[in-house]
């Protein structure tokens, strides 16, 4: 029997609200299939499965907030019978509690400890009343049997919250929740990761001309933007300098097997999300452009896939649109590097002994000093510089 557990969809996620199933018992699933939709503090995410098998039992119930690692469903492995699964279930100990990281600070004090993986005890009438009053019953302190949230608890919480502003509670919660998640991840980053920073002005004369010529012969929908060149150059540089690409976990660096570039996307309602484009080093510019457009659209619509949330091995942030010259980013843990691009603008550059006005961009690197040193970082940035001079090779 295979247990399908709620995956962590990013370092800042310790729980998620289960929204719906996309499969039913008896369905055959394979690696990469979308099986469920889970709301994280950042977005509703389509969760993929990494095992092949047949859905046996759906455990998670819609609307319930679960800890990362909670068993959401069980699957029969290929060839396994339901009888065998039942037998295994009987011999298996109760689901192991997943420890909650001490650094995640709950928004509201909860009287009873929430056992990870177990549904919060909220009485039926309290749940109903909470929905009517717009109170999140999961965050209310419970005084009922076994710490269950009772009607009285909900009404007390609602009375205490009457000073809340007119913004719909759900939306406000969502924004506050995302802010909290970003705060947790970034605080952790600055606390744990010894950042070093490098920057380099990169001439984009060749790239600009090449793009103009390329786009001139392409249809409107197939045109490529400079952003795609940036992504590809970073990915190729990562292949050459793998100590920029990967995750730092449990005191050691694990190089990424492929380059999954997290793309920082700002959301209209505020906040930030950095889902991955997979295998950027292998993809054509046309493909990358399509992926990028699609990713931005879905990130803003709130329908990302779980692998996109959890897989990035390096992040690229592009604040050039905002008109700033350069950006020095904060690494998204447990990644070890972040590449920033500023505004692409006409600048006075010395080229072949003469002063010329050409388009250029400031590329910057924030990297983890536990994994790499400035020297390696410099070679990495220089490689990005070099690659962007040969756009046809990207």
């Amino acid at each position: 029997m295979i247990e399908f557990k709620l995956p962590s969809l990013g370092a800042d996620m310790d729980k998620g609200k289960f929204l719906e199933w996309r499969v039913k018992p008896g369905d055959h699933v394979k690696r990469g299939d979308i099986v469920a939709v889970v709301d994280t503090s950042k977005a509703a995410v389509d969760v993929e499965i990494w095992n092949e098998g047949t859905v046996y039992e759906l455990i998670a119930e819609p609307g319930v907030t679960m800890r990362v690692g909670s068993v959401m469903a069980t699957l029969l492995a290929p060839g396994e019978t339901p009888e065998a699964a039942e037998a295994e279930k009987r011999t298996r100990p109760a689901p192991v509690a997943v420890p909650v990281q001490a650094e995640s600070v709950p928004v509201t004090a909860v009287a009873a400890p929430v056992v990870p993986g177990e549904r919060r005890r909220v009485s039926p009438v309290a749940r109903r009343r909470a929905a009517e009053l717009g109170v999140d019953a999961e965050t209310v302190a419970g005084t009922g049997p076994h710490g269950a949230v009772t009607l009285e608890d909900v009404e007390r919480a609602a009375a205490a919250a009457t000073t809340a502003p007119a913004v719909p509670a759900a939306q406000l919660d969502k924004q506050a929740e995302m802010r909290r998640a970003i705060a947790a991840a970034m605080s952790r980053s600055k606390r744990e990761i010894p950042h070093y920073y490098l920057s380099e002005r990169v001439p984009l004369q060749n790239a600009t001309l090449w793009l103009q010529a390329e786009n001139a012969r392409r249809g409107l929908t197939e045109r490529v933007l400079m952003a795609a060149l940036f992504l590809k150059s970073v990915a190729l540089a990562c292949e050459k300098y793998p100590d920029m690409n990967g995750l730092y976990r449990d005191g050691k660096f694990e190089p990424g097997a492929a380059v999954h570039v997290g793309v920082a996307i700002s959301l209209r309602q505020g906040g930030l999300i950095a889902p991955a484009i997979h295998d950027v080093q292998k993809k054509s510019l046309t493909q990358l452009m399509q992926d990028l457009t699609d990713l931005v659209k879905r990130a803003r619509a709130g329908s990302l896939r779980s692998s996109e949330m959890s897989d990035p091995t390096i992040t690229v942030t592009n604040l050039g649109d905002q008109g700033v010259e350069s950006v020095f980013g904060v690494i998204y843990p447990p990644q070890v590097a972040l590449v920033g691009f500023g505004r692409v603008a006409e600048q006075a550059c010395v080229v072949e002994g003469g002063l010329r006005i050409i388009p250029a961009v400031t590329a910057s690197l924030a990297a983890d000093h536990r994994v790499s040193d400035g020297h390696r970082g410099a070679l990495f940035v220089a490689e990005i510089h070099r690659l962007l001079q040969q756009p046809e090779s990207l």
Partner: protein
Amino acid sequence: MTVISYREAMRQALREALSRDERVFLMGEDVGKYGGTYAVSKGLLEEFGPERIRDAPLSELGFVGAGIGAALGGMRPIVEVMTVNFSLLALDQIVNSAALMRHMSGGQFSVPLVIRMATGAGRQVAAQHSHSLEGWYAHIPGIRVLAPATVEDARGMLWPALEDPDPVVIFEHVQLYNLEGECAGAPRVDIASAAVRRAGADVSLITYGGSLPKTVEAAQQLAAHGIDAEVIDLRVLRPLDTEVIVESVRKTRRAVVVDEGWRTGSLAAEVMAGIMENAFYDLDAPVARVCSEEVPIPYAKHLEDAALPQAEKIVAAARAICGKS
């Protein structure tokens, strides 16, 4: 107001029925010369004579069957069975004949029979005389099951039971016979509804028969803990008055069902199921129950006490679901 015992109330009810309708007669083991196992019919033989107060041979199957025959023949028999344990010998007559006759005859025959029987424990008469099998009878379509738990109900339920054209089983809990209460004349009571014996706001204690006094006592103790308990007396075990139960639980949002029957497959379970079906979204805590331990009722006093629902157990269960244990 006059204070009388439950036993006296039952005797007055019998006397009234025998006087009002000449088709009524009482039949059972030791109801005549001995005056009834629990002395309910004492003096009636002298008053109404052996034709109408009939001692039966020791065969529950035989005399319950005779009662059915008499009812079919136009009489209004009251058959007394010594205890519910012994009534199992007559189950075939009650379940396969009395309860089915209207159905099997296509509505041509009805069986206007009343069967009274003692039930329950607490008098140290050991397992074969102490069980509480009301739930078994409450399972059977075709019969009405009553459990008078107050002096007033003991006095008032018999006559409407005799007026019912179908078989009615009346359970008299042995612990109640000495219960005293005010009762004047012939109170008019129904044999269809449950009753609120004590109004309260925090938890519904739902019970019947011999457990009612214990439950009322528990409600008084709970008041000292700041829990305002409502006490519901089911009175009629079949058909159950779900409306009163649900109305109470909707108000208090919590319920403890108290039932002297064994826990598994109990009448308490049926009451709880009715609450789930009708008031789930009004509940503020899981519904609890206090039933008998799943053992034959012991003879030894301390063990018998331990096996039965008691006020302390009811208080503990109510406090637990109120989050105040």
